[in-house]
């Protein structure tokens, strides 16, 4: 596609007979068309982020320093980052695994077509059902007075809060709530990869005497691996940036990085505005790495989906 897109441009370049001076003016006018977009992006996306990034390397007087970056190593901030990474990792791992299982079951498991259609439709909605309403739904389900909590108590005599030590407002409670948008997102994203597993590969493997396990281990999984890893990274980034759900569930008591930053903006809880910039920089770097890796892996995975 990029070949076709560049063709006319090259044709213009080589086939041009007008003097170079006029060509220059024409080129300038051509660029004018993208000025609004670049201006908007510079002012409301790149500029503000760059401001934070440069601020991360300055002290309050505006002099260059690494002190803020060094201060990221202080105990409470390292703890926040670790908690964030751990929560995102666990929720992405559970999401990727269950999404993959669901994908295999629905796409490859020989279930009727309508099951696939129903899950696809529902996943499209559920993967976008995040934020505050999701928190409310889980409070009504697994909160202290939630339906499932009450049901467990009345039917089995188990109080999941007192007897099992479960609380929705903890690490695993949050991971369980995140799963509600992570699982459908994984399912939606892994579906094209699973569809891309050609029946011929399986037949070829079976003809050569491969067992079911060998087929998965040596053919299907290696082909799927870039997709799975890529989706996992996207889920990770997705969870890492989540703030609203966690805030609605736990207030500000659960110190993940977005919450720390939120508090910092509200009331300078770090007592150093430039340290806030450094935390923001840290977030952008982590999001950047996981998204870049995701895009790289996706490009790799698409080789098999032609």
């Amino acid at each position: 596609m990029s070949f076709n897109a560049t063709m006319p441009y090259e044709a213009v370049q080589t086939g041009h007979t007008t003097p170079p001076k006029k060509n220059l003016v024409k080129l300038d006018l051509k660029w004018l068309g993208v000025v609004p977009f670049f201006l908007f992006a510079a002012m409301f996306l790149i500029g503000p982020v760059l401001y934070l990034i440069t601020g991360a390397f300055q002290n309050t007087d505006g002099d260059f320093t690494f002190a803020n970056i060094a201060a990221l190593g202080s105990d409470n901030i390292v703890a926040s980052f670790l908690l964030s990474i751990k929560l995102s990792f666990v929720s992405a791992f559970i999401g990727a695994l269950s999404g993959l299982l669901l994908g295999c079951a629905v796409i490859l498991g020989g279930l009727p077509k309508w099951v696939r259609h129903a899950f696809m439709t529902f996943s499209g909605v559920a993967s976008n059902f995040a934020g505050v309403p999701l928190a409310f739904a889980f409070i009504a389900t697994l909160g202290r007075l939630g339906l499932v909590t009450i049901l467990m108590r009345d039917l089995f005599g188990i109080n999941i809060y007192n007897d099992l030590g479960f609380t929705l407002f903890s690490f695993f409670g949050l991971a369980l709530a995140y799963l509600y948008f992570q699982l459908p997102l994984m399912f939606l994203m892994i579906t094209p990869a699973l569809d891309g597993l050609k029946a011929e590969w399986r037949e070829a493997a079976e003809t050569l005497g491969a067992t079911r396990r060998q087929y998965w281990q040596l053919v299907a999984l290696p082909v799927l691996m870039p997709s799975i890893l890529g989706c996992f990274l996207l889920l990770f980034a997705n969870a890492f940036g989540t703030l609203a759900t966690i805030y609605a569930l736990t207030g500000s008591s659960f110190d993940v990085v977005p919450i720390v930053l939120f508090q910092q903006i509200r009331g300078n809880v770090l007592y150093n505005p430039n340290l806030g910039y450094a935390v923001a920089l840290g977030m952008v770097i982590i999001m950047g790495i996981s998204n870049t890796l995701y895009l790289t892996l996706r490009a790799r995975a698409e080789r098999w989906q032609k």
Partner: protein
Amino acid sequence: MKKPFPIMPTLIALMSALYFLVPLYATFLFSLKMTRGEYSFASYRSVLNSSIFIDTITFSTIASLCAIVIGTVIIVPTAYWVRLKLPHIRPVIEFISLLPLVVPPVVLVFGYIRVFGSNSWLPLAGSDQGTNLLLVFGYVVMSMPYMFRAVDNGMSVIDIKTLTEAAESLGASRIRTIAFVIFPNVRGAIMSGAFLTFSISLGEFVLASLLNRPAFGPYLVQLGQDRAYEPAALAIMAFAFTWACMALMQLFAVKKPGSRWFPRLSIKLYKKVEA
């Protein structure tokens, strides 16, 4: 060889369905329990009768619509222009449009507050109207990846080069071409991006809260702290709303320019006429 009944897949699908549906069912049931001893829609009535609900949702609706309009006005001409005249800078535009995925909303708004604070060169955050504008721009930025993708996909299925040449040979100006030829042809794609934008920004919390706007997201959080049953009612409404947005998005994304809304119905009618 007859295929055996798929036990494991069925089990996995059932478990997943259970995980998806139980919270919805629980939330719905919970939302009906406001009046003691009976099921009623009292919590829904309470929400819909509250004036803060009406005010905040009106505010957020307007903000979202503004974001959709501004986003469209920025992205459609850019995507068109890049495809037509500057295909070699496409990767740059694509990269910038994907950047918001790397910048979490909390970081974006942090930057806004610092760059456009009351003692900066452009003190947008100093006034109410300016802050509203910042909120809308923030939503434009957050929806940019989806909007750009939708519009760009829409443009890939129409032949913009031929359309442009046709419009120009009929004497249309650049702006006229974009507004009356290109725009209508990617309307479906724009609408599809618009509904996604709408579902993202209507209940958005982080930007609205940190910019101190009377929007729907902060109202939701406040309600969650103050009330028990109304949040459940709102969660159900939010789910229905998300569903509607996604359904409309899908409808517009699949619909090709000029195609009918209900293809199956029209085929039937056509056959009848033929017979």
